């Protein structure tokens, strides 16, 4: 038995390694992703005052700090029993969508598109954004522009591009004025153009990757996402809905406060990443997926014209049933980017957005609260317990990427079994194993909580778990 180790997994956010076990017959028997860092946010937040939580938990991540701040302020709203004014809610929604836009753009352009342009078997020196700048300068420029637009919205409305401090319990610190609104609106047409061109590029190139589409994490699983009252795509608020791989509704109208009744959290050896599962089906059968693919599978419609048009084509991929191919996470991400821009435009044009954006209050009315939102990578839960003065007693975080842990492992195994030949391990095969992980766009620094400093590797192990070969990526 041999063991292949890919360490670190590259072009993802955070640190991970992959181990691939080879049996006595030289076949891949198992493959796993190991998250090798630990953060400890749940612990060191204890004893802090509730009002500190949005700023503290936003530090979980430099890519999606807004998502953490949004879930956190929503939990704080509940603790205080405050409902933000409509302008506050609209601005929070815009900031959250801008976050999704910039994060998805980073995932597609900066991390994954080199694979689509040059192919999975291209030399690794050529599979990066710098090469893309040389051969496809306009596309690289567009990707950078679109991400910058998302970040500009966050900076304008919430104070800073990264770790903004304008998101506070009770609403948003700063009201939006008309002139600023118009400046942002002026950039929408170009953003829509870039987004549509990205979709066109991806769809045109799909035929090149049929083998990857058919083998990158294609398996039945449950899907979970927030939806609004019309079962449409929703990232800020709404109720949880869980469907199976056939599209049957298992749970709907679940208030995020009740998440513990439906989601269990298992801990696996060799990884700091929790493995949440759907409780009624048990562990590990209750594997579910979250994120763009799950959201589009769960939602009936997006609610914006252009994105809905694209969604029709997306839903047709599996004749209206949930799309099971994890490769299509990229596709779903691109549709969500278009949706985010359209929705931002609609919210900016809503006159209510220009009103008073904050209700201030500091009296603790509840001692437990759950804040939930859709982060770029999936459903995010912040669960706080406080004393009567608002001092945090207990914290539980279920990070978007964590929800996908079981599915990512299943996907890695499938890709390894399809592409890895134990007798001749090629760069292309290893890149595909990593690319599967990239489909999920995991944010591992977010989802784990780490003392580790080791980055990710691919390990080749024999049936006695002896390491045969380690592929170090740094």
């Amino acid at each position, binding site marked *: 038995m041999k063991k292949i180790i890919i360490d670190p997994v590259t072009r993802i956010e955070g640190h991970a390694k992959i181990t691939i076990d080879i049996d006595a017959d030289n076949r891949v028997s198992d493959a796993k992703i190991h998250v090798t860092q630990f953060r400890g946010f749940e612990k060191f937040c204890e*004893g*802090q*005052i509730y*009002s*500190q939580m949005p*700023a*503290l938990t936003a*530090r979980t991540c430099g890519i999606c700090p807004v998502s953490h701040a949004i879930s956190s302020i929503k939990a704080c709203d509940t603790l205080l029993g405050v409902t933000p004014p409509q302008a506050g809610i609209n601005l929070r929604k815009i900031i959250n969508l801008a976050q999704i836009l910039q994060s998805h753009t980073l995932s597609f352009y900066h991390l994954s598109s080199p694979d689509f342009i040059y192919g999975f078997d291209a030399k690794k020196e050529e599979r990066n954004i710098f090469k893309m700048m040389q051969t496809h300068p306009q596309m690289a420029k567009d990707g950078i522009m679109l991400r910058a637009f998302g970040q500009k919205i966050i900076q304008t409305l919430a104070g800073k591009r990264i*770790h903004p*401090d304008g998101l506070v319990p009770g609403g948003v*610190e700063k009201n939006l004025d008309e002139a600023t609104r118009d400046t942002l609106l002026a950039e929408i047409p170009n953003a829509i153009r870039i987004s549509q061109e990205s979709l066109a590029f991806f769809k045109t190139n799909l035929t090149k990757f049929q083998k990857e589409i058919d083998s990158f994490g294609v398996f039945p699983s449950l899907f979970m996402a927030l939806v609004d009252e019309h079962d449409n795509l929703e990232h800020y608020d709404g109720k949880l809905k869980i469907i199976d791989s056939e599209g049957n509704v298992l749970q709907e109208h679940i208030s995020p406060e009740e998440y513990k009744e439906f989601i269990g959290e298992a801990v696996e050896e060799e990884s700091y990443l929790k493995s949440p599962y759907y409780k009624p089906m048990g562990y590990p059968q209750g594997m579910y997926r979250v994120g763009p693919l799950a959201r589009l599978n769960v939602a009936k419609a997006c609610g914006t014209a252009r994105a809905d048009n694209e969604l029709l084509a997306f839903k047709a991929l599996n004749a209206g049933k949930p799309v099971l191919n994890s490769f299509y996470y990229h596709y779903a991400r691109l549709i969500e980017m278009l949706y985010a821009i359209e929705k931002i435009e609609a919210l900016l044009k809503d006159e209510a957005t220009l009103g008073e954006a904050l209700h*201030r*209050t*500091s*009296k603790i009315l509840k001692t437990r609260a759950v804040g939930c939102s859709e982060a770029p990578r999936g459903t995010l839960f912040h669960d706080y317990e406080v004393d009567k*003065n*608002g*001092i945090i007693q207990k914290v539980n975080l279920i990070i978007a990427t964590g929800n996908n842990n079981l599915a990512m492992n299943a996907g890695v195994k499938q890709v390894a079994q399809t592409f890895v030949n134990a007798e001749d391990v090629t760069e292309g095969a290893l890149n595909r194993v990593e690319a599967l992980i990239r489909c999920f766009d995991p944010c591992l620094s977010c989802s784990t909580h780490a003392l580790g400093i080791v980055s990710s590797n691919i390990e080749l192990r024999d049936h006695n778990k002896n390491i045969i070969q380690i592929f170090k990526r740094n």
Partner: protein
Amino acid sequence: MIREKVRVKSFKINGIDVTGASNQTILEIAQENNIEISTLCYLKGLSCVGSCRMCIVEVKGSDKLIPSCTSKIKEGMEVTTDSARIKANREMILSMLFSERTHTCSVCVSNGNCELQDKSTELRLEHSQVPYGHARFEIDASHKNFVNDPNRCILCSRCIRVCDEIEGAHALDLMGRGMDTRIIHDMDEPWAESLSCTSCGKCVYVCPTGALYEKDISAEEAEKKRNIIMELLERKVEQ
């Protein structure tokens, strides 16, 4: 009561001839002559206690560095306010202030409006020269308006002094020793249960860091309240 006779004293600061009354401090004379000395616990209008040691200066003929805010002027003394030795000591003092408690600027309510933070910028201190103690104190959020977070306290005692000398309540004091010292209300009761606290908020608005802060208030409102307290202190100086 026999009052000490105030006399005029002449001396030098950084080689410049200056004069002052014998009951004045080196810091006061330096400020009157536009000679800058770095301070932190000092606040015009309150008594001086020299707790932070940031305003240390050299006096010719003495091996020790002395706090200029509490040292009275003397005839013929030669004071130096800026030297490599003073700078090194100030950096060490500031490092020790940072390492003593848990000052995480990025998530602090006073980020961008903190005198300790300003001091590190002024001295260009990028890292603490001593290891962090990672102290962990309980936060007192019992008061309906205010929070006391000892993890950000530098024990400057401005809050104690303003409560005693301006508000006249003396609701605050110090308890414990060394690194465990902290600001308490009355006999170490939760803030909400303090009988002598008048909830005036003066302590909050003289706090140089984010150790004492008001809940549920915008930065603009906080600035306004701070200005009112500072004006009160100015008036006291004029009296």
